[in-house]
């Protein structure tokens, strides 16, 4: 019935496992090396500082300044986190401390659906709802002229996209705090809010910061949805109502001409390398932050 005997099957299975494991373990390094080799052409001609801090982007003239894209990415990410962070923290506290268990049973599928909606659909929703809202209502109401395609639109769509990711981590963190710690604070005469403010949030703080960090890293690399609503204009935004351009959008928008302009492919790969570096860096830092979790 079997082609191989037991010992042979064991060898085959084990080898298969080890090969797969090696492939996966070396994946981050492979990615890094692959992208580095492609962008080395650009790094050969320009210094890293030039590339990052130069403001002029004219690939056909051989000018590759990534500064506007980096700044655009930072704007979009930071504004998105300013929405996501408080919303997620408040919600996580509410559903773990104030509501009955059945409420979490409503929240979990809702979070799952939000997490499952594809990036392109978020982008489409942004175009349908958020962009017109900003150009027709929010902008005029605040006395700002805006097309709607803006840093703010991108940030808002992005903030919704990372909510399920951050919220899931936060709910887990708050649920993992033992009830007895809460009881200890309450038995001292603390009110529920004092318990949350002074004890629970403090206990969870490293985890909360890490959750925000992971969210930030995720937001930084998000491509399609941002690309669809951010406006894609290469210039330094002066306010959140200005259009901007982000690193992932740069890559996604220009892959078509990549091979027709000299060094352009190298430049786009360098952008991907930057994204990879930022993502790895943030995740690393947050990981070590969590390792030091139980300081108190």
């Amino acid at each position, binding site marked *: 019935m079997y082609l191989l005997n037991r010992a042979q099957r064991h060898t085959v299975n084990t080898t298969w496992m080890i090969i797969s494991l090696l492939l996966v373990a070396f994946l981050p390094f492979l990615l890094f090396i692959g992208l580095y080799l492609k962008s080395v052409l650009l790094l050969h001609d320009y210094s890293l500082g030039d590339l990052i801090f130069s403001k002029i982007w004219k690939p056909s003239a051989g000018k590759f300044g990534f500064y506007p894209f980096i700044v655009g990415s930072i704007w979009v990410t930071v504004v998105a986190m300013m929405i996501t962070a408080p919303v997620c923290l408040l919600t996580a506290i509410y559903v773990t401390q104030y509501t*009955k268990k059945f409420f979490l049973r409503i929240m979990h599928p809702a979070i799952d659906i939000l997490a499952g909606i594809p990036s392109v659909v978020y982008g489409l929703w942004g175009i349908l709802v958020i962009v017109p809202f900003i150009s027709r209502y929010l902008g005029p109401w605040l006395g700002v002229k805006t097309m709607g395609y803006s840093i703010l639109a991108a940030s808002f769509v992005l903030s919704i996209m990372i909510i399920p990711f951050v919220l899931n981590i936060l709910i887990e963190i708050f649920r993992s705090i*033992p*009830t*007895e*710690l*809460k*009881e*200890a*604070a*309450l*038995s*001292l*005469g*603390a*009110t529920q809010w*004092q318990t949350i403010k*002074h*004890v629970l949030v*403090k*206990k969870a703080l490293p985890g909360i910061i890490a959750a925000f960090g992971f969210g930030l890293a995720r937001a930084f690399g998000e491509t399609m949805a941002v690309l669809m609503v951010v406006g894609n204009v290469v210039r330094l935004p002066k306010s959140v109502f200005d259009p901007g351009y982000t690193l992932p959008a740069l890559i996604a928008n220009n892959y078509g001409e990549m091979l027709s302009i000299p060094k352009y492919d190298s430049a786009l790969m360098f952008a991907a390398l930057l994204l990879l570096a930022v993502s790895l860096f943030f995740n690393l830092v947050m990981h070590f932050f969590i390792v030091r979790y*139980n*300081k*108190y």
Partner: protein
Amino acid sequence: MDQDTKIEIRDLNVFAGKTQILKNVNIEIPKNKITVILGPSGCGKTTLLKCLNRLTDLYPELKVSGRIMIDDNNILEAKEDIYKLRQQMGLLSQRPYPLPMTIYNNIAYALKLRGIRNRRETHKLVMHYLQQANLWDEIRTRLREPASRLSIGQQQRLCLARGLAVNPEIILADEPTSALDPISSQFIEETFGRLRNDYTIVLVTHVLRQAKRIADNVVFMYLGEVIEQGSVEEVFGNPKMEKTKLYLGGTFN
């Protein structure tokens, strides 16, 4: 109410859904004595303790009925002053749960909740309570360290000091030595011995020897019911009920 009775529990019933955790519990707990609630695990001892300082409020599935009188106030009816009420009682749980703060602030936080904001007084009282809990000498130089760096026995004494810092009249202790090494357990028992004249202590345990060593009064519970209660001599020396005899004889656990 009897002059010397501090807590009087009348017809206390607790349901979790359809299961009844406490059945018609009637207990009188005398003032400034150590009352030990004894019984095998799962007999509702911990729930009883949580009723006393209304931590049952945290569990919406629990239905509590009956009366618990502390100094002529039915605490089950308390609404607004529940925080004050909890400050009448210091709690010591099975495992120590230090607050995520420094050693010093663990006590100072309790003092703050009591309304003490003067720094010098805070300082004096932190020292006082740490001494009372038999901890001061060991940690006087480490006050600014996170409380989690203490050993588990030290943490439990810190929790006791924190419980005393709210200036309670009652101390509730839920198997406070079950997670501790013998020496730390002894420290805690000694501390209880010194506190017995000033505080009404309610101690839950399933360790018979511990009950014998420190109890003034014993309440024996089994499956949510009070089987027998009385002074330590009565219950241990001359148990009236069959179940008590079996338990004391070690037949069931």
